Protein backbone atom coordinates (compact mmCIF):
# COMPACT_ATOMS: atom_id res chain seq x y z
CA UNK A 1 0.00 0.00 0.00
CA UNK A 2 1.36 3.38 -1.00
CA UNK A 3 1.32 6.23 1.50
CA UNK A 4 -0.52 9.43 0.62
CA UNK A 5 -0.43 11.32 3.93
CA UNK A 6 1.23 14.74 4.08
CA UNK A 7 1.71 17.31 6.82
CA UNK A 8 1.16 21.06 6.55
CA UNK A 9 2.96 22.76 9.45
CA UNK A 10 1.92 20.01 11.84
CA UNK A 11 -1.58 19.53 10.44
CA UNK A 12 -1.84 15.94 9.23
CA UNK A 13 -3.74 15.27 5.99
CA UNK A 14 -4.68 11.74 4.89
CA UNK A 15 -3.88 12.82 1.37
CA UNK A 16 -2.75 16.07 -0.29
CA UNK A 17 -6.10 16.93 -1.94
CA UNK A 18 -7.99 19.97 -0.62
CA UNK A 19 -10.99 21.58 -2.33
CA UNK A 20 -10.07 25.23 -2.99
CA UNK A 21 -11.69 28.18 -1.32
CA UNK A 22 -14.76 29.48 -3.13
CA UNK A 23 -15.43 26.31 -5.08
CA UNK A 24 -16.72 24.14 -2.26
CA UNK A 25 -18.99 26.49 -0.33
CA UNK A 26 -18.74 25.75 3.37
CA UNK A 27 -18.24 22.11 2.53
CA UNK A 28 -21.35 20.50 3.96
CA UNK A 29 -23.26 20.89 0.71
CA UNK A 30 -20.88 18.47 -0.99
CA UNK A 31 -21.78 15.88 1.62
CA UNK A 32 -24.84 15.29 -0.57
CA UNK A 33 -22.56 14.09 -3.36
CA UNK A 34 -20.12 11.93 -1.38
CA UNK A 35 -18.59 11.36 2.05
CA UNK A 36 -16.33 14.38 2.30
CA UNK A 37 -14.24 12.78 5.02
CA UNK A 38 -12.17 11.29 2.22
CA UNK A 39 -10.66 14.75 1.64
CA UNK A 40 -7.22 15.75 2.85
CA UNK A 41 -8.69 18.98 4.19
CA UNK A 42 -11.23 21.64 3.15
CA UNK A 43 -10.58 25.31 2.45
CA UNK A 44 -13.81 27.17 3.13
CA UNK A 45 -15.29 30.08 1.16
CA UNK A 46 -13.33 33.33 1.61
CA UNK A 47 -14.60 35.20 4.64
CA UNK A 48 -14.55 38.89 5.50
CA UNK A 49 -15.38 40.84 8.66
CA UNK A 50 -18.77 42.04 7.43
CA UNK A 51 -21.27 39.98 5.44
CA UNK A 52 -20.90 40.68 1.68
CA UNK A 53 -23.32 40.21 -1.17
CA UNK A 54 -20.49 40.31 -3.69
CA UNK A 55 -20.65 41.60 -7.25
CA UNK A 56 -23.72 41.99 -9.45
CA UNK A 57 -24.54 39.29 -12.03
CA UNK A 58 -23.33 38.00 -14.43
CA UNK A 59 -20.46 36.75 -12.31
CA UNK A 60 -19.35 33.83 -14.48
CA UNK A 61 -17.95 33.55 -17.99
CA UNK A 62 -16.57 30.59 -19.86
CA UNK A 63 -13.13 30.54 -21.49
CA UNK A 64 -11.10 27.95 -23.38
CA UNK A 65 -10.04 25.41 -20.77
CA UNK A 66 -11.28 27.50 -17.90
CA UNK A 67 -13.66 30.06 -16.49
CA UNK A 68 -13.78 33.57 -15.13
CA UNK A 69 -15.46 34.38 -11.85
CA UNK A 70 -16.27 37.72 -10.34
CA UNK A 71 -18.17 36.47 -7.32
CA UNK A 72 -16.56 39.20 -5.27
CA UNK A 73 -16.26 37.41 -1.95
CA UNK A 74 -19.91 36.78 -1.22
CA UNK A 75 -19.99 35.51 2.38
CA UNK A 76 -22.02 35.83 5.57
CA UNK A 77 -19.20 37.47 7.55
CA UNK A 78 -16.76 35.93 10.01
CA UNK A 79 -19.11 35.89 13.01
CA UNK A 80 -21.74 33.81 11.26
CA UNK A 81 -19.13 31.61 9.64
CA UNK A 82 -17.69 30.80 13.07
CA UNK A 83 -21.06 30.50 14.79
CA UNK A 84 -23.05 28.69 12.10
CA UNK A 85 -21.18 27.46 9.05
CA UNK A 86 -18.21 25.79 10.75
CA UNK A 87 -20.33 23.86 13.29
CA UNK A 88 -22.60 22.77 10.42
CA UNK A 89 -19.56 21.52 8.52
CA UNK A 90 -18.20 19.74 11.61
CA UNK A 91 -21.42 17.72 11.86
CA UNK A 92 -20.61 15.91 8.63
CA UNK A 93 -16.84 16.30 8.50
CA UNK A 94 -14.09 15.55 11.01
CA UNK A 95 -10.92 16.29 8.99
CA UNK A 96 -8.85 19.50 8.91
CA UNK A 97 -10.39 22.84 7.97
CA UNK A 98 -8.58 25.81 6.41
CA UNK A 99 -10.25 29.14 7.18
CA UNK A 100 -9.81 31.37 4.12
CA UNK A 101 -9.76 35.04 5.15
CA UNK A 102 -9.93 38.21 3.06
CA UNK A 103 -9.81 41.81 4.09
CA UNK A 104 -9.92 45.39 2.94
CA UNK A 105 -7.62 46.76 5.62
CA UNK A 106 -4.90 45.50 7.90
CA UNK A 107 -7.34 45.83 10.74
CA UNK A 108 -9.95 43.69 9.03
CA UNK A 109 -7.41 40.95 8.35
CA UNK A 110 -6.36 40.97 11.99
CA UNK A 111 -9.89 40.85 13.40
CA UNK A 112 -11.02 38.13 11.02
CA UNK A 113 -7.96 35.96 11.42
CA UNK A 114 -8.12 36.22 15.20
CA UNK A 115 -11.74 35.07 15.16
CA UNK A 116 -11.02 32.25 12.72
CA UNK A 117 -8.02 31.22 14.83
CA UNK A 118 -10.13 31.12 17.99
CA UNK A 119 -12.72 28.77 16.50
CA UNK A 120 -12.30 25.18 17.72
CA UNK A 121 -13.11 23.99 14.21
CA UNK A 122 -10.28 25.56 12.26
CA UNK A 123 -6.84 24.02 11.83
CA UNK A 124 -5.02 26.46 9.58
CA UNK A 125 -5.56 30.07 8.54
CA UNK A 126 -5.25 30.80 4.80
CA UNK A 127 -4.94 34.53 4.23
CA UNK A 128 -6.08 35.61 0.78
CA UNK A 129 -4.14 38.72 -0.19
CA UNK A 130 -4.96 38.16 -3.81
CA UNK A 131 -8.61 38.30 -4.75
CA UNK A 132 -8.65 40.32 -7.95
CA UNK A 133 -12.32 41.15 -7.84
CA UNK A 134 -12.52 43.63 -5.04
CA UNK A 135 -11.58 47.11 -6.04
CA UNK A 136 -10.35 48.71 -2.87
CA UNK A 137 -7.98 46.48 -1.00
CA UNK A 138 -7.74 42.81 -2.03
CA UNK A 139 -5.53 43.19 -5.06
CA UNK A 140 -3.06 45.72 -3.76
CA UNK A 141 -2.14 43.76 -0.62
CA UNK A 142 -0.96 40.85 -2.72
CA UNK A 143 1.05 42.70 -5.33
CA UNK A 144 3.32 44.77 -3.10
CA UNK A 145 5.94 42.93 -1.00
CA UNK A 146 5.78 45.56 1.77
CA UNK A 147 2.05 45.27 2.22
CA UNK A 148 2.18 41.48 2.12
CA UNK A 149 4.86 41.62 4.78
CA UNK A 150 2.74 43.89 6.96
CA UNK A 151 -0.33 41.68 6.67
CA UNK A 152 1.69 38.56 7.41
CA UNK A 153 3.29 40.02 10.52
CA UNK A 154 0.04 41.45 11.85
CA UNK A 155 -1.88 38.25 11.31
CA UNK A 156 0.86 36.08 12.78
CA UNK A 157 0.68 38.07 15.99
CA UNK A 158 -2.94 37.10 16.62
CA UNK A 159 -2.87 33.48 15.41
CA UNK A 160 -1.73 30.37 17.24
CA UNK A 161 -2.58 28.15 14.30
CA UNK A 162 -0.38 27.99 11.20
CA UNK A 163 -0.82 30.91 8.82
CA UNK A 164 -0.61 30.34 5.03
CA UNK A 165 -0.52 33.38 2.78
CA UNK A 166 -2.42 32.90 -0.49
CA UNK A 167 -0.74 34.82 -3.29
CA UNK A 168 -1.86 36.45 -6.50
CA UNK A 169 -0.27 35.34 -9.78
CA UNK A 170 -0.80 38.81 -11.27
CA UNK A 171 2.68 39.99 -10.36
CA UNK A 172 5.99 40.51 -12.09
CA UNK A 173 7.96 38.68 -9.44
CA UNK A 174 6.16 36.06 -7.36
CA UNK A 175 9.40 35.19 -5.59
CA UNK A 176 9.79 38.61 -3.97
CA UNK A 177 6.22 38.42 -2.68
CA UNK A 178 6.80 34.93 -1.31
CA UNK A 179 10.00 36.06 0.36
CA UNK A 180 8.14 38.93 2.02
CA UNK A 181 5.73 36.39 3.50
CA UNK A 182 8.60 34.29 4.76
CA UNK A 183 10.21 37.33 6.36
CA UNK A 184 6.87 38.26 7.92
CA UNK A 185 6.75 34.88 9.64
CA UNK A 186 4.27 32.98 7.48
CA UNK A 187 4.09 29.24 8.13
CA UNK A 188 3.36 28.42 4.52
CA UNK A 189 2.10 29.66 1.17
CA UNK A 190 -0.92 28.93 -1.01
CA UNK A 191 -0.48 29.66 -4.67
CA UNK A 192 -1.99 30.61 -6.97
CA UNK A 193 -5.19 32.58 -6.85
CA UNK A 194 -6.85 33.49 -10.16
CA UNK A 195 -5.29 35.36 -13.09
CA UNK A 196 -7.11 38.53 -14.01
CA UNK A 197 -8.99 38.16 -17.28
CA UNK A 198 -12.12 39.17 -19.15
CA UNK A 199 -14.52 38.26 -21.97
CA UNK A 200 -16.67 40.43 -24.20
CA UNK A 201 -20.17 39.56 -25.42
CA UNK A 202 -20.15 40.06 -29.20
CA UNK A 203 -23.88 40.61 -29.46
CA UNK A 204 -24.06 43.16 -26.66
CA UNK A 205 -20.59 44.58 -27.47
CA UNK A 206 -20.02 44.77 -23.74
CA UNK A 207 -18.05 42.82 -21.13
CA UNK A 208 -19.73 39.54 -20.18
CA UNK A 209 -19.08 40.11 -16.47
CA UNK A 210 -20.94 42.93 -14.76
CA UNK A 211 -17.67 43.60 -12.95
CA UNK A 212 -15.85 43.87 -16.35
CA UNK A 213 -12.92 41.69 -15.27
CA UNK A 214 -12.79 38.45 -13.30
CA UNK A 215 -10.45 35.76 -12.12
CA UNK A 216 -9.34 33.07 -14.55
CA UNK A 217 -9.03 29.54 -13.24
CA UNK A 218 -9.22 25.99 -14.53
CA UNK A 219 -6.78 23.85 -16.56
CA UNK A 220 -5.81 26.84 -18.74
CA UNK A 221 -3.78 28.31 -15.86
CA UNK A 222 -2.08 25.08 -14.74
CA UNK A 223 1.28 25.77 -16.47
CA UNK A 224 1.46 29.25 -14.93
CA UNK A 225 0.64 27.90 -11.48
CA UNK A 226 3.19 25.13 -11.82
CA UNK A 227 5.88 27.61 -12.85
CA UNK A 228 5.19 29.84 -9.85
CA UNK A 229 5.25 26.93 -7.40
CA UNK A 230 8.54 25.86 -8.99
CA UNK A 231 10.09 29.33 -8.67
CA UNK A 232 8.94 29.85 -5.10
CA UNK A 233 10.12 26.39 -4.03
CA UNK A 234 13.61 27.30 -5.25
CA UNK A 235 13.74 30.53 -3.26
CA UNK A 236 11.70 30.06 -0.11
CA UNK A 237 11.80 27.46 2.66
CA UNK A 238 8.09 27.25 3.41
CA UNK A 239 5.60 24.50 2.63
CA UNK A 240 3.48 25.31 -0.41
CA UNK A 241 -0.12 24.42 -1.18
CA UNK A 242 -0.17 24.39 -4.97
CA UNK A 243 -3.27 25.08 -7.03
CA UNK A 244 -4.49 26.33 -10.36
CA UNK A 245 -6.17 24.06 -12.88
CA UNK A 246 -5.70 20.74 -11.10
CA UNK A 247 -8.12 18.17 -12.51
CA UNK A 248 -6.51 14.76 -12.11
CA UNK A 249 -4.17 12.67 -9.97
CA UNK A 250 -1.52 13.31 -12.66
CA UNK A 251 -1.85 17.05 -12.09
CA UNK A 252 -1.49 16.53 -8.33
CA UNK A 253 1.79 14.71 -8.74
CA UNK A 254 3.08 17.23 -11.28
CA UNK A 255 2.35 20.03 -8.82
CA UNK A 256 4.04 18.17 -5.99
CA UNK A 257 7.11 17.45 -8.12
CA UNK A 258 7.27 21.21 -8.72
CA UNK A 259 7.40 21.77 -4.97
CA UNK A 260 3.91 21.61 -3.45
CA UNK A 261 3.34 19.73 -0.18
CA UNK A 262 -0.41 19.64 -0.78
CA UNK A 263 -2.73 20.87 -3.51
CA UNK A 264 -6.09 22.52 -3.88
CA UNK A 265 -8.67 21.70 -6.52
CA UNK A 266 -10.91 24.60 -7.50
CA UNK A 267 -12.89 25.00 -10.72
CA UNK A 268 -12.85 21.23 -11.32
CA UNK A 269 -15.33 20.82 -8.43
CA UNK A 270 -17.82 23.02 -10.23
CA UNK A 271 -18.01 21.01 -13.42
CA UNK A 272 -17.68 17.66 -11.69
CA UNK A 273 -18.93 17.60 -8.10
CA UNK A 274 -17.05 14.33 -7.61
CA UNK A 275 -13.73 15.74 -8.81
CA UNK A 276 -11.84 15.61 -5.49
CA UNK A 277 -13.15 12.16 -4.62
CA UNK A 278 -12.18 10.80 -8.01
CA UNK A 279 -8.71 12.31 -7.80
CA UNK A 280 -8.18 10.84 -4.33
CA UNK A 281 -9.43 7.44 -5.49
CA UNK A 282 -7.06 7.32 -8.44
CA UNK A 283 -4.00 8.62 -6.62
CA UNK A 284 -2.76 5.30 -5.13
CA UNK A 285 -3.02 3.46 -8.45
CA UNK A 286 -1.15 6.18 -10.29
CA UNK A 287 1.54 6.24 -7.60
CA UNK A 288 2.00 2.52 -7.97
CA UNK A 289 2.33 2.76 -11.74
CA UNK A 290 4.97 5.46 -11.31
CA UNK A 291 6.80 3.59 -8.55
CA UNK A 292 6.05 6.11 -5.82
CA UNK A 293 5.68 4.44 -2.42
CA UNK A 294 5.52 7.52 -0.25
CA UNK A 295 4.02 10.69 -1.66
CA UNK A 296 6.12 12.89 0.63
CA UNK A 297 9.24 11.80 -1.20
CA UNK A 298 8.25 13.47 -4.45
CA UNK A 299 7.70 16.95 -3.03
CA UNK A 300 9.99 19.14 -5.12
CA UNK A 301 11.32 16.00 -6.82
CA UNK A 302 11.76 17.63 -10.24
CA UNK A 303 14.25 20.11 -8.75
CA UNK A 304 16.46 17.32 -7.54
CA UNK A 305 16.46 15.76 -11.00
CA UNK A 306 17.74 19.02 -12.40
CA UNK A 307 20.65 18.97 -10.01
CA UNK A 308 21.68 15.43 -10.89
Amino acid at each position, binding site marked *: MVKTAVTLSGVLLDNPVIPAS*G*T*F*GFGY*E*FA*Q*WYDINCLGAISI*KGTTREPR*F*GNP*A*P*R*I*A*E*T*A*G*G*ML*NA*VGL*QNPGIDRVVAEELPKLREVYQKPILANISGFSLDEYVTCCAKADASPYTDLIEVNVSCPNVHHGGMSFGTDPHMVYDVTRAVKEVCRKPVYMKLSPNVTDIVSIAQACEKGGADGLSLINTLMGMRIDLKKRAP*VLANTTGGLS*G*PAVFPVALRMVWQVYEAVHLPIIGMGGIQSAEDVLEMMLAGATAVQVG*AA*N*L*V*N*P*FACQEIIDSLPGLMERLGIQEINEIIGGAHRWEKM
Partner: protein
Amino acid sequence: MKRGKFTVLQNKELAPATFRMVLAGDTEAITAPGQFVNIALTGKFLRRPISVCDWNEAQLTLIYKVVGQGTAQMSQMVPGTELDLLTGLGNGYDLEKSGDKPLLIGGGVGIPPLYALAKKLIAQGKSPRAILGFNRKEEQFLTAEFRALGIAVSLTTVDGSLGIKGFVTDAMPQTGYTYLYTCGPAPMLRAIDEKAVTSGQFSFEERMGCGFGACMGCTCQTKYGSKRICREGPVLEREEILW
Protein backbone atom coordinates in the same frame (compact mmCIF):
# COMPACT_ATOMS: atom_id res chain seq x y z
CA MET B 1 -29.27 15.98 -7.27
CA LYS B 2 -27.57 13.19 -9.17
CA ARG B 3 -24.93 12.77 -11.81
CA GLY B 4 -25.67 10.23 -14.50
CA LYS B 5 -25.01 9.03 -18.01
CA PHE B 6 -27.84 9.63 -20.45
CA THR B 7 -28.28 8.40 -24.00
CA VAL B 8 -29.76 10.54 -26.74
CA LEU B 9 -32.89 8.85 -28.10
CA GLN B 10 -34.10 11.68 -30.32
CA ASN B 11 -32.83 15.09 -31.34
CA LYS B 12 -35.21 16.84 -33.67
CA GLU B 13 -35.54 20.37 -34.98
CA LEU B 14 -39.02 21.60 -34.02
CA ALA B 15 -38.67 25.12 -35.39
CA PRO B 16 -35.73 27.04 -36.83
CA ALA B 17 -32.78 26.52 -34.46
CA THR B 18 -35.08 25.03 -31.79
CA PHE B 19 -34.55 21.35 -30.97
CA ARG B 20 -36.18 18.71 -28.85
CA MET B 21 -33.82 16.19 -27.30
CA VAL B 22 -35.12 13.06 -25.61
CA LEU B 23 -32.67 11.35 -23.27
CA ALA B 24 -32.77 7.96 -21.56
CA GLY B 25 -31.30 7.58 -18.09
CA ASP B 26 -31.91 7.73 -14.36
CA THR B 27 -34.39 10.55 -13.70
CA GLU B 28 -34.96 9.77 -10.03
CA ALA B 29 -33.49 13.09 -8.83
CA ILE B 30 -36.06 15.15 -10.74
CA THR B 31 -38.79 16.07 -8.30
CA ALA B 32 -40.60 19.11 -9.70
CA PRO B 33 -41.36 20.85 -13.00
CA GLY B 34 -39.17 23.90 -13.45
CA GLN B 35 -36.02 22.08 -12.35
CA PHE B 36 -33.14 21.88 -14.77
CA VAL B 37 -30.27 19.63 -15.81
CA ASN B 38 -26.65 20.68 -16.39
CA ILE B 39 -25.01 19.09 -19.41
CA ALA B 40 -21.28 18.42 -19.85
CA LEU B 41 -20.13 19.00 -23.44
CA THR B 42 -16.81 17.81 -24.90
CA GLY B 43 -14.37 20.68 -25.27
CA LYS B 44 -16.45 23.10 -23.19
CA PHE B 45 -15.30 23.83 -19.67
CA LEU B 46 -18.67 24.69 -18.14
CA ARG B 47 -21.85 22.64 -18.34
CA ARG B 48 -24.97 23.95 -20.11
CA PRO B 49 -28.11 24.38 -17.98
CA ILE B 50 -31.39 23.39 -19.71
CA SER B 51 -34.84 23.13 -18.13
CA VAL B 52 -36.62 19.81 -18.02
CA CYS B 53 -39.59 20.02 -20.38
CA ASP B 54 -41.02 16.64 -19.45
CA TRP B 55 -39.90 13.43 -17.79
CA ASN B 56 -40.91 9.96 -16.66
CA GLU B 57 -39.05 7.21 -14.78
CA ALA B 58 -36.67 6.44 -17.62
CA GLN B 59 -36.59 9.46 -19.93
CA LEU B 60 -36.48 13.21 -19.99
CA THR B 61 -37.19 15.75 -22.68
CA LEU B 62 -35.34 19.02 -23.22
CA ILE B 63 -36.16 21.78 -25.68
CA TYR B 64 -33.32 24.12 -26.47
CA LYS B 65 -32.48 26.90 -28.84
CA VAL B 66 -29.13 27.14 -30.64
CA VAL B 67 -27.63 30.43 -29.45
CA GLY B 68 -23.92 29.65 -29.25
CA GLN B 69 -21.27 26.99 -29.65
CA GLY B 70 -22.53 24.67 -26.92
CA THR B 71 -26.10 24.46 -28.11
CA ALA B 72 -24.82 24.20 -31.70
CA GLN B 73 -22.80 21.16 -30.61
CA MET B 74 -25.89 19.66 -28.97
CA SER B 75 -27.89 20.13 -32.16
CA GLN B 76 -25.43 17.88 -34.03
CA MET B 77 -25.80 14.93 -31.68
CA VAL B 78 -27.14 11.71 -33.12
CA PRO B 79 -29.20 9.09 -31.28
CA GLY B 80 -26.91 6.89 -29.24
CA THR B 81 -24.66 9.74 -28.11
CA GLU B 82 -23.84 9.53 -24.41
CA LEU B 83 -24.08 12.62 -22.22
CA ASP B 84 -23.03 13.34 -18.65
CA LEU B 85 -25.83 15.19 -16.84
CA LEU B 86 -26.41 16.60 -13.41
CA THR B 87 -30.13 16.20 -12.75
CA GLY B 88 -32.64 17.43 -10.22
CA LEU B 89 -31.11 20.91 -10.02
CA GLY B 90 -32.99 23.90 -8.71
CA ASN B 91 -36.19 24.18 -6.71
CA GLY B 92 -38.79 23.98 -9.48
CA TYR B 93 -42.36 25.23 -9.31
CA ASP B 94 -44.44 24.71 -6.20
CA LEU B 95 -47.71 23.14 -7.31
CA GLU B 96 -49.39 23.58 -3.92
CA LYS B 97 -49.87 27.29 -4.43
CA SER B 98 -51.68 27.10 -7.76
CA GLY B 99 -55.29 27.44 -6.71
CA ASP B 100 -57.93 26.10 -9.12
CA LYS B 101 -57.19 28.13 -12.20
CA PRO B 102 -53.51 28.91 -12.49
CA LEU B 103 -52.25 30.87 -15.47
CA LEU B 104 -49.05 29.67 -17.17
CA ILE B 105 -47.16 32.20 -19.30
CA GLY B 106 -44.13 31.24 -21.34
CA GLY B 107 -42.04 33.03 -23.92
CA GLY B 108 -39.75 31.27 -26.42
CA VAL B 109 -37.50 28.71 -24.79
CA GLY B 110 -39.13 29.68 -21.48
CA ILE B 111 -42.11 27.60 -22.57
CA PRO B 112 -40.68 24.05 -22.12
CA PRO B 113 -40.71 23.81 -18.31
CA LEU B 114 -44.36 24.92 -18.26
CA TYR B 115 -45.34 21.80 -20.18
CA ALA B 116 -44.53 19.37 -17.38
CA LEU B 117 -46.03 21.86 -14.95
CA ALA B 118 -49.31 21.90 -16.89
CA LYS B 119 -49.41 18.10 -16.93
CA LYS B 120 -48.88 17.86 -13.17
CA LEU B 121 -51.46 20.53 -12.43
CA ILE B 122 -54.03 18.71 -14.55
CA ALA B 123 -53.16 15.46 -12.78
CA GLN B 124 -53.94 17.22 -9.50
CA GLY B 125 -57.36 18.23 -10.81
CA LYS B 126 -56.52 21.86 -11.50
CA SER B 127 -57.61 23.81 -14.59
CA PRO B 128 -54.57 25.62 -15.85
CA ARG B 129 -54.58 27.77 -18.95
CA ALA B 130 -51.56 28.87 -20.91
CA ILE B 131 -50.32 31.87 -22.85
CA LEU B 132 -47.40 31.05 -25.13
CA GLY B 133 -45.48 33.79 -26.90
CA PHE B 134 -43.24 33.61 -30.00
CA ASN B 135 -41.66 36.09 -32.36
CA ARG B 136 -43.40 34.73 -35.44
CA LYS B 137 -45.45 31.78 -36.62
CA GLU B 138 -42.53 29.77 -37.95
CA GLU B 139 -40.90 29.77 -34.53
CA GLN B 140 -43.79 28.10 -32.72
CA PHE B 141 -43.25 24.77 -31.02
CA LEU B 142 -44.96 22.67 -28.36
CA THR B 143 -48.29 24.44 -29.04
CA ALA B 144 -49.98 21.28 -30.31
CA GLU B 145 -48.74 19.37 -27.29
CA PHE B 146 -50.13 22.01 -24.94
CA ARG B 147 -53.50 21.89 -26.75
CA ALA B 148 -53.45 18.09 -26.60
CA LEU B 149 -53.53 18.41 -22.81
CA GLY B 150 -57.06 19.74 -23.30
CA ILE B 151 -56.42 23.15 -21.78
CA ALA B 152 -57.07 26.63 -23.11
CA VAL B 153 -54.02 27.95 -24.91
CA SER B 154 -53.59 31.52 -26.19
CA LEU B 155 -50.80 32.24 -28.61
CA THR B 156 -49.09 35.55 -29.28
CA THR B 157 -46.54 36.51 -31.90
CA VAL B 158 -44.66 39.75 -32.14
CA ASP B 159 -45.42 40.06 -35.86
CA GLY B 160 -49.01 38.84 -35.59
CA SER B 161 -48.42 35.89 -37.92
CA LEU B 162 -50.08 33.60 -35.37
CA GLY B 163 -52.59 34.29 -32.59
CA ILE B 164 -52.69 37.68 -30.96
CA LYS B 165 -50.24 40.24 -32.34
CA GLY B 166 -47.94 41.48 -29.62
CA PHE B 167 -46.42 40.15 -26.41
CA VAL B 168 -47.70 37.60 -23.92
CA THR B 169 -48.87 40.46 -21.75
CA ASP B 170 -51.27 41.49 -24.51
CA ALA B 171 -53.04 38.18 -23.99
CA MET B 172 -53.06 38.36 -20.19
CA PRO B 173 -56.54 38.55 -18.70
CA GLN B 174 -57.32 41.25 -16.11
CA THR B 175 -58.79 38.65 -13.83
CA GLY B 176 -60.06 35.08 -13.67
CA TYR B 177 -56.89 33.26 -12.66
CA THR B 178 -55.81 32.11 -9.20
CA TYR B 179 -52.02 32.05 -9.54
CA LEU B 180 -49.27 32.73 -12.06
CA TYR B 181 -46.44 30.50 -13.27
CA THR B 182 -44.07 32.00 -15.79
CA CYS B 183 -40.76 31.53 -17.53
CA GLY B 184 -39.04 33.49 -20.28
CA PRO B 185 -36.68 36.37 -20.97
CA ALA B 186 -36.17 38.88 -18.16
CA PRO B 187 -38.00 41.80 -19.85
CA MET B 188 -41.04 39.56 -20.35
CA LEU B 189 -41.03 38.53 -16.70
CA ARG B 190 -40.91 42.14 -15.68
CA ALA B 191 -43.77 43.13 -17.96
CA ILE B 192 -45.86 40.25 -16.61
CA ASP B 193 -45.14 41.36 -13.06
CA GLU B 194 -46.49 44.78 -13.85
CA LYS B 195 -49.76 43.40 -15.16
CA ALA B 196 -50.22 40.51 -12.74
CA VAL B 197 -53.12 40.54 -10.29
CA THR B 198 -52.28 37.41 -8.29
CA SER B 199 -49.28 36.02 -6.59
CA GLY B 200 -47.07 33.78 -8.67
CA GLN B 201 -43.75 32.13 -9.42
CA PHE B 202 -41.21 33.41 -11.93
CA SER B 203 -38.33 31.38 -13.32
CA PHE B 204 -35.00 33.13 -13.98
CA GLU B 205 -31.84 32.45 -15.92
CA GLU B 206 -28.33 33.35 -14.86
CA ARG B 207 -24.83 32.42 -16.03
CA MET B 208 -23.72 29.53 -13.87
CA GLY B 209 -20.45 28.12 -12.65
CA CYS B 210 -21.67 24.90 -11.07
CA GLY B 211 -25.47 24.79 -11.17
CA PHE B 212 -25.67 23.07 -7.79
CA GLY B 213 -24.95 25.74 -5.21
CA ALA B 214 -21.19 25.57 -4.73
CA CYS B 215 -19.73 28.68 -6.36
CA MET B 216 -22.07 31.62 -5.65
CA GLY B 217 -21.78 32.40 -9.34
CA CYS B 218 -25.52 32.86 -9.90
CA THR B 219 -26.56 34.81 -6.83
CA CYS B 220 -29.19 37.53 -7.07
CA GLN B 221 -30.59 39.89 -4.49
CA THR B 222 -34.13 39.31 -3.28
CA LYS B 223 -36.21 41.09 -0.66
CA TYR B 224 -35.31 38.26 1.69
CA GLY B 225 -31.58 38.22 1.13
CA SER B 226 -29.38 36.76 -1.56
CA LYS B 227 -30.44 33.62 -3.37
CA ARG B 228 -28.66 31.30 -5.76
CA ILE B 229 -30.63 30.95 -8.99
CA CYS B 230 -29.37 27.38 -9.27
CA ARG B 231 -30.43 26.33 -5.78
CA GLU B 232 -33.02 28.58 -4.14
CA GLY B 233 -34.11 29.31 -7.74
CA PRO B 234 -34.50 29.27 -10.67
CA VAL B 235 -38.10 29.79 -9.52
CA LEU B 236 -38.66 32.80 -7.26
CA GLU B 237 -41.84 34.00 -5.60
CA ARG B 238 -43.31 37.17 -7.08
CA GLU B 239 -43.24 38.77 -3.62
CA GLU B 240 -39.51 38.42 -3.10
CA ILE B 241 -38.25 39.59 -6.47
CA LEU B 242 -36.29 42.85 -6.68
CA TRP B 243 -36.77 44.06 -10.26
